[in-house]
Structures are given as structure tokens and as C-alpha cells.
């Protein structure tokens, strides 16, 4: 089975600082993967490159079958061909209702003209309600999302990610600010989602990563330091050096 996302020899430099250094990485169509690494390891920059926010100086990024060169696409195009991203800080549209937030994320035509003529059909409303109950916001659809708690906003953002129905989800610190119960729910959701599509989770919290029970990639100074199960990588002396040796 060929990889869904293939990152090959990517490097990027900011004002002389090498944020990503000859990074190679790949993930299968239905795989859950955690990426860990100390601050400044290049985790966020990696996501920026995949989602088109940052252009690398060199290297290749391909997605899907047949492979599409992501470096040629704009952010919105990348999102449209099936890569969803959840940001570290929850960013939902606070001035709009939960329903509207989800409705915008729903997989539909994205052009201004179709948006003008759009009327939420029965299937769309059902899908939104389905997602809302999945993320525990079924009773909050009419509320402004700005009024939600921090954890609820995290959920809403995950819900928006699901509504996009992407082939690949990039999730940046999903559990930050969540209660224990919410964390468990999040883990379940991510594991379940990864049965049908690829999920990359960037996380600091080792406990959370452990609960995901998935392969782990350790980034350090912009390249892959180690890869394998969590136990395997945490036994790696280099990883220990990076995490504790400073």
C-alpha cells in the first residue's frame, strides 16, 4: 500500500535558522501517528509545510494516489483535497454559532457563488447534528461559539475537522486544557477516526500519547530522531538525551 503523505528531504530556513533539516516522513491512508519533540524541534513548522502555510526551501511533499505535489497548491486547495488541521490554540469563529461553524466546515462546494446560493439541506443538517452529538455540543448548536468553554472550543474545532471529512488530519495538541474525562473521549475519537483515515497528532503530553497506542515519531532540530512505538523511542538514549539532557 502506498503512502498517503510522503515528505521527502524537506528543509526550510528562517533568517539563517534551520527550522526543518532534511526531514523525511510518510504516513499510510489509515494510520494514527504521534509526533513528539522538544520545543523548537520543528513540529509546527512541519504542519505549516504540509498545509501550505510555509514554503520549504527544498524537498518534496506528495499526497494521495495518484500523488499530488502539495508544494504547488495554496492552503485552501490543500484543505480541499483532504487535509484538515486543528490548531494548538482553539481557533473557532467566536462571533458565529456552533451550527454556523460546523456548517462552514462541512464538505461542500467552497466557491463564493455556491456559498451565496447555499441552503442547508436535510442531509447537511443531519450530518451537523450527528457531529454535534459526537463532540458533545448537540445542545449548544444555537449558541455563539465564543460563549463556549475552552474545552468545548477544542471539541468544536475537532468537530469542524470531522465535518471537513479529510483523508488526513493534522491535530496539534488536542488535549491541551481538557479535563481527564474529555481527554479520554478525545483519545477514543482519534483512534476511531484513524480507522478510516490518517491522523497525525502532535503532542507534548506523554500520557496522552501512550493512550493513543500508536507509532511515534520523535523530531529534533528539524529532522527525525527516532521512530517506533512509544516504549521503543523512550528507550532510545538519544531521545532521553534530547528530552532530559539539557
Amino acid at each position, binding site marked *: 500500500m502506498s503512502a498517503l503523505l510522503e515528505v521527502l528531504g524537506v528543509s526550510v530556513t528562517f533568517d539563517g535558522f534551520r527550522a526543518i533539516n532534511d526531514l523525511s516522513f510518510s504516513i499510510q491512508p489509515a494510520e494514527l501517528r504521534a509526533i513528539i519533540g522538544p520545543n523548537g524541534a520543528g513540529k509546527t513548522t512541519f504542519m505549516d509545510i504540509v*498545509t501550505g*502555510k510555509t514554503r520549504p526551501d527544498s524537498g518534496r511533499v506528495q499526497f494521495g494516489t495518484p500523488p499530488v505535489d502539495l508544494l504547488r497548491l*495554496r*492552503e*485552501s*486547495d490543500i*484543505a*480541499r483535497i483532504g487535509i*484538515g*488541521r486543528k*490548531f494548538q490554540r482553539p*481557533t473557532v*469563529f*467566536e*462571533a*458565529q454559532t456552533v451550527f*454556523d461553524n460546523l*456548517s*462552514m*466546515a462541512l464538505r461542500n462546494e*467552497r*466557491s*463564493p*457563488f455556491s*456559498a*451565496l446560493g*447555499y*441552503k*442547508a439541506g436535510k442531509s447537511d443538517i443531519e450530518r451537523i447534528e450527528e457531529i454535534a452529538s459526537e463532540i458533545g455540543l448537540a445542545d449548544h448548536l444555537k449558541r455563539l461559539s465564543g460563549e463556549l468553554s475552552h474545552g468545548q472550543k477544542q471539541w468544536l474545532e475537532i468537530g*469542524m475537522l470531522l465535518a*471537513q471529512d479529510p483523508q488526513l488530519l493534522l491535530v496539534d495538541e488536542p488535549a491541551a486544557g481538557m479535563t481527564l474525562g474529555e481527554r479520554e473521549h478525545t483519545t477514543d475519537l482519534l483512534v476511531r477516526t484513524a480507522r478510516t483515515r490518517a491522523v497525525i497528532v502532535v503532542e507534548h503530553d506523554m500520557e496522552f500519547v501512550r493512550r493513543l497506542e500508536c507509532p511515534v515519531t520523535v523530531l529534533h532540530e528539524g529532522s527525525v530522531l527516532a521512530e517506533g512505538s512509544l516504549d521503543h523511542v523512550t528507550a532510545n538514549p538519544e531521545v532521553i538525551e534530547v528530552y532530559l539532557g539539557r
Partner: protein
Amino acid sequence: MKNTFLARNPSVLVFILLLAVITLLATVFSEAYGTGLLPTNYVKILGKTLCLCLIAIAMDLVWGYCGILSLGHFAFFGLGGYMIGMWLMYARTEDIVIASMTNAALPPTPDEVRDAIGTQIFGVVGGSDVPLVWSFAHSLPIQLALVVLVPGLLALVFGWLAFRSRVTGVYLSILTQAMTLALSLYLFQNDSGLRGNNGLSGLQNIPGLTDAPQSVLSIWFMWGSALALGLGYVFAAWMVSGKFGNVVKAIRDDEARIRFLGYSVEAYKLFIFTVTAVIAAIAGAIYYPQAGIVNPAEIAPIASIYLAVWVAIGGRGRLYGAVIGAALVSLLSSWFTGGQAPDLPLGFYTVQWVDWWQVLLGLSFVLVTLFAPRGIAGMFDRLVRKDAA
């Protein structure tokens, strides 16, 4: 929940009713069709104010809803005025020229008519040929189409360039201001073919309707303005109340995020920029026949900034806010600068409002921005909510 258009936009009905009432009242008291309490001059001011409300709605769409602080929408307004003005001036001059030639020994040839029109219109800038840009000035349908096409195309090209290169925020504001300045400087030249700083004048005389007195015309134009404003309000409300409106507001609030949801921010911005430019142009095309004259000074960057001021004072992000702001500030402005406002004696100094109105406006603008960022409509909203609670 009923999800009809009117249910989502309760203000539309109120607005349309109010608009109809005001227009009817003005007609009832007008000189042409009513008691004559309201002088024609005031009817014209009312009609013009309605047009300004329409462009304020356009400004609110692009700024209040989409977050693009355009300092160039008055340029589109002025261009719309120029486009209709070309027909008004050409057709009327043609009538006059032909009338003056009927007594000549020989009936005039088309060339002679055109030459005479050229001399008549372009004599002030030392020309006598009719420039190329006036090629379609004889045709009302074509010029009407150009009212929409020329500003629309300009907005499309400029917007495409600006949004494509992701110019945002104050950069974009300054770029739109530069565009406006460039346009007005261009029109200021005599060889722009649009009579330089003289602009187009005599637009209040409608060709073919020379017998109709201004008092009648002004009523008709007021109704036209009201119709345009009403349609514009409904159209704008329809645009912003659906999913399109949600996306546009999302662009205003977090451009990067909506991009990662797969929306082409550039396409939406370009769409709304162009559509509002066209609305502005239509407003201008109705405004200038009532004003009588359009010249490059009208297009100067400052006019567009005032437009932003109206919308900010009225309250952006609410369509009725834009209308309130435009109506209030422009009416107050003409009251103060018109010399009607009584002087304010302070003992040591007498404040003459003609001189000090600008200062008052500038400072009140600072105060509104500081203390009432949602404008008058925002305060209004708060009152309504308090009553409800």
C-alpha cells in the same frame, strides 16, 4: 425555527417601511406633488443622502463584514457618476447643438454636430475633438452598462492584484487609498478626456425631459434613490445572512483559519470587493444627476475616508448602522457647513460652525472609536437588549 429570510433579518422589514414612509412624506410635502412645505433643494438633499446611505451599505459589507478597510469606494462612486454624467452631458449638449443649428442655412452634417458638441463640451480644457472615451456617450444603454462595467472591472483588476499578493490590513487600506489618489490625479488632467478639474456639469438637466421642472425631477430621483437603497439593503441583507455571510465574517475574524477550512479567501474578498464597488457605482450614478456636477475632487482619497467615518460612527457590521451613520453625519455636515447652525458665543471667542465643524467631526470620531467602537447602532443594540431583558 423558521429559517426564512425575513426571520433572519428582522431589520429589513422595518427599514423598508421607514424608507417608504420618509419618501412618501417628502412627496406629500414637496413642491411638485404636495403642499410645498419642503423646498426642492431639501428634496434633493434627501435624495442624495439616500444614495450616500447606499454606498455606506457597500462600505459596511466590505469593511464591517469582510474586514477590508477600503479607502477607495468613493472612487467607484465617482466613476459611476462620471459614466452616467458622460451620457447626460453629451446627450443634452447634442440637443442644444441641434436646436441651435435648425436655423442655419444648411442642415448640419453629423460631423458638424459632433464638432460642435466637442467644442461645447471641451472648450474649457482647450479641446474641440470628442475624445475616444466618449465613443459611447450618445447611447444611454451603453453608458448605463458602463456604470457597472467600468468600476466593476477596475475593482476586479485592482482587487485581483491586491488580494492575490495577500496584502491585508493597513497595507491594503493604503493601497486602496493610493488607487483612489491615482484615479483622481488622472482625472485632474485635462488630457484624461473628462474635462480635467472642471469635471462634468449640468447633470441635473435630463436630456429629453427638459420640460420637466427640477421640483418634479427631484421627486422622481428621490424615489429612484429610495428604490435603489431599498433593493441594496435587501440584497446586502440576503448576502450576509446566509453561508456566504458566515464565510465573509469568518474571513474578517480569522483569515488564516478559514483558509485551512478550504475556502479561497482571495476569491471571496475579490467577489465582495467587486460587488460592493458596483453598488457604490450605482449609488454614484443616481447621486450625481441630483448633485449636478461631478469632478475629480469628489474622488479624492479624503472622501473615501469620510465614508469609513460614517460607517464607523453608525456602527459597522450592521447594515442599518451604516445607513444611520451616513444619513446622520452627511446631514449634520451639510447643516453645519451650510451656515444654518447658530454660532456659539463663548464670550472670548465665537465658534463659527462653518470653521469648527470639521474639528468637531474629527474629535467626535476619535471619541466614537475610543468609547463606542460599535457606533450608534451598537448603543442602540444595547438599549434594545436591556429592554428585552
